[in-house]
């Protein structure tokens, strides 16, 4: 009888390490990637994000607590394509042994001047590639949960397919000559390429460059010449400039388009899917008849 209890006791003890390995620590560089990882990882992954909701991932300055998050992580998921200029130093400083996963692997980047445009997640087909890369990384790092990750990913990819179809259907309803907008942030090139809406912007790729009068004048002339119907703001930059351009051209101000980050829980874009839905709704109501 006592031997039985001993066996049970030893079995229980040896089962513990297996339970403790359950949640794999993953750090994502910004909120959109964090959302992808959460969807694939489910409750088997403990996800933390460096640049949180409403943050600006282009100009982020990491803090010591970020270094700590990195040090504890097994996987670090980054966008790549030059988005996180501040990351290499952080990784080095944290002395982290995390495996770095570039979510945009396998995507042929669009160019802005001579550099790559990092906003690849804006097109849903690209987002699916991101999710696949993340799934493969999780599977490699945590084989016991591979089945779970694959199942989550498959379900999420299905949701993304549905989303893609939604977007295409919505855009089809907009008359072709009205498929062009102005926005402040040159972050929608991938969206434009995938879905056929032209995005024009007065400032450069990051939120730091300042426009010249010539750039603004050229933009105004173009809007008037091409009869561009709507102007959109981005949740991080100078909305007064966009408002001025709208006032001078008679274009309609369409609200806010979200590009580089999710909003908080109570905002209109707490997840990637919600973000895309919000954007497409704003676009169709501004551009539709």
């Amino acid at each position: 009888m006592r031997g039985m209890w001993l066996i049970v006791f030893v079995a229980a003890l040896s089962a513990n390490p297996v339970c403790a390995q359950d949640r794999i620590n993953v750090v994502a560089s910004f909120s959109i990637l964090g959302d992808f990882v959460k969807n694939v990882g489910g409750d088997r992954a403990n996800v933390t994000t460096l640049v949180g909701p409403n943050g600006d991932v282009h100009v982020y300055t990491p803090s010591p607590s970020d270094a700590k998050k990195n040090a504890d992580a097994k996987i670090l998921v980054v966008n790549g394509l030059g988005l996180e200029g501040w990351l290499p130093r952080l990784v080095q400083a944290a002395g982290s042994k995390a495996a770095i996963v570039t979510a945009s692997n396998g995507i042929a980047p669009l160019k802005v001047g001579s550099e790559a445009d990092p906003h690849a997640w804006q097109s849903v087909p690209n987002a699916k590639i991101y999710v696949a890369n993340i799934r493969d990384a999780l599977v490699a790092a945590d084989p016991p949960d591979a089945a779970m990750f694959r199942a989550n990913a498959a379900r999420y990819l299905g949701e993304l397919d549905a989303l893609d179809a939604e977007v295409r259907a919505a855009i089809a309803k907009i008359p072709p000559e009205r498929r062009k907008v102005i926005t402040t942030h040159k972050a929608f090139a991938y969206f434009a390429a995938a879905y056929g809406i032209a995005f024009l912007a007065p400032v450069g790729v990051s939120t730091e460059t300042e426009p010249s009068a010539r750039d603004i004048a050229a933009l105004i002339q173009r809007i008037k010449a091409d009869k561009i119907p709507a102007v959109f703001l981005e949740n991080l930059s100078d909305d007064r400039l966009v408002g001025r351009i709208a006032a001078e051209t008679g274009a309609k101000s369409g609200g806010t388009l979200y590009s580089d980050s999710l909003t908080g829980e109570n905002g209109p874009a707490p997840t990637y899917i919600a973000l895309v839905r919000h954007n497409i709704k704003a676009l169709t109501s501004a551009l539709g008849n």
Partner: protein
Amino acid sequence: MLTAALITPFTDFEFMRRALAAVIALSLGGAPIGVFLMLRRMSLVGDAMAHAILPGAAIGFLLYGLNLLAMILGGLTAGFLVAILAGVVSRSTGLKEDASLATFYLASLALGVTIVSVKGTNIDLLHVLFGNILAMDDQTLLTVACNATITLIVLAVIYRPLVIESVDPLFLRTVSRAGTPTHLAFLALVVINLVSGFQALGTLLAVGLMILPAGIAKFWSRDISGMICAAVVSAIISGYAGLVLSFQTRIPSGPAIILVAALLYIGSVLFGSVGGVVRQLFPGRHLEA
């Protein structure tokens, strides 16, 4: 051909007209203040103030989110506190004005950074707060115009004691009690001009159009009223020429205006009628008496 370059940008585009109006208003209010700042050896106070307003803006952000009005009022309050505390300390102790201001603005900046980091967001608050001259909407234009009006009126009232206080403070102290109120009123004007200048036009233009014209004027007049006129005129010329330059080339508008002002300054250093280098090197024949 020349008319096309100099006049048509303003007749064709409303944002250019508004920018010109803003520059004129800023010159009328800011340039006289800049002359006094320079004569009182406070030329670097603009930069100091840009940092000093941070805790006020941060508190405004904490309480009301990205509400521009809250952040401006917060910034104004912080600016006033720093300026007035520095002024009072330097008058009642042996500490000179510049040291007094330096200590307060550094303390203020540290406080601001602490507040922002406690909240845990990485939004560059000051970036949000600072505006752009090409984005003059009705409200901002009105602010800049009001600012100039208030400044001119208050300056007219305190002109005489301000001049006396700048050249012979002990004399003013012995004949009148107007010394301290005048000094504080002047500091208040400096803060108002700077803060509203920042939020309308950004730091570079707000501070630049105060200080550079004062430097230019020094080489063209021996008398303070002449200096003030010269400063206002050179500020307006810089603004106009800078806007034209930004329109014809791809130089951003703020830097373009300041670059023109800098060129005028170098020209004045060399060829100015009062103490210009060329005049010193080639004074001509000496007079009979």
